[in-house]
């Protein structure tokens, strides 16, 4: 699977988030909730916080690889490192959850949590980007 080079401008990621935030109810034709205001705010904050954190570590202001809606009104942001990937869920109530895929293909190991504090999420993003 190809890996895209890190995106160093946050603007495309934020623009995409604005588009996703505008999705109506039932955007999946299966009764999905529209993205909640708290989820959009939490996702926006995380994009900025992760970029600030990476800039402090001299990696540059790295943007998420992608973002997508979740039917419960949440949003998902993903960061891809050389050998790992993290999917962070901005939950409808503004909290965060995550799934990390350490390694690739059949040897991959997974780690997940439904709720996690911001500092833990930022530390995991840093580990993934450094892997």
């Amino acid at each position, binding site marked *: *699977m*190809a*890996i*895209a080079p890190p995106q160093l401008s946050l603007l495309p990621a934020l623009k*995409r988030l604005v*588009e*996703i935030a505008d999705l109506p109810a*039932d*955007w*999946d*034709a*299966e*009764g*999905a*909730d529209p993205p909640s205001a708290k989820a959009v705010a939490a996702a926006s904050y995380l994009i900025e916080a992760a970029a600030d954190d990476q800039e402090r570590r001299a990696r540059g202001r790295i943007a998420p*690889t*992608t*973002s*997508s*809606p*979740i*039917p*419960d009104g949440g949003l*998902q942001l*993903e960061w891809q490192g050389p050998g790992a990937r993290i*999917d962070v*869920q901005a939950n409808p109530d503004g909290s965060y*959850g*995550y*799934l990390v*895929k350490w390694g690739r293909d059949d040897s991959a190991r*997974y780690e*997940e949590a*439904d709720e996690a504090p911001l500092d833990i999420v930022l530390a995991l993003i840093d580990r993934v980007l450094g892997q």
Partner: protein
Amino acid sequence: MTERIDDGDDLFRRILEYHRVPATGRISSSAFMGKGRRLDPEVSVFLARLSDPAKVLRAGLPRQQLVALQAAVPRAIGLDVHLQPTEDVVGHCVIVGFGLNWKEQCARLADASHLVEVPGSVRE
């Protein structure tokens, strides 16, 4: 007679274009997350053998796309696939049985999925 779903059967799932990673085309795990993920996770798919891909897309919303994966994929990670026909779609199925590692299960389903080209559908 109950329709049997073989491991080699393809399953379709409708996704939004946002569920594909722009730079690589990989499918995001969120494409397989359901609304009631913690309480009653149930993911809608369509048995390809009984479904016209163009009709499945038409029954969804504009800008949706179709991905496919084999029925063996969910079964290999502890999930099950049940046929659950609706009035309009006889091939409608649900993937059930998500556990505490439901995010990993969604990621494995997504990683094993590929885009289905449907003539006449919208692509971005």
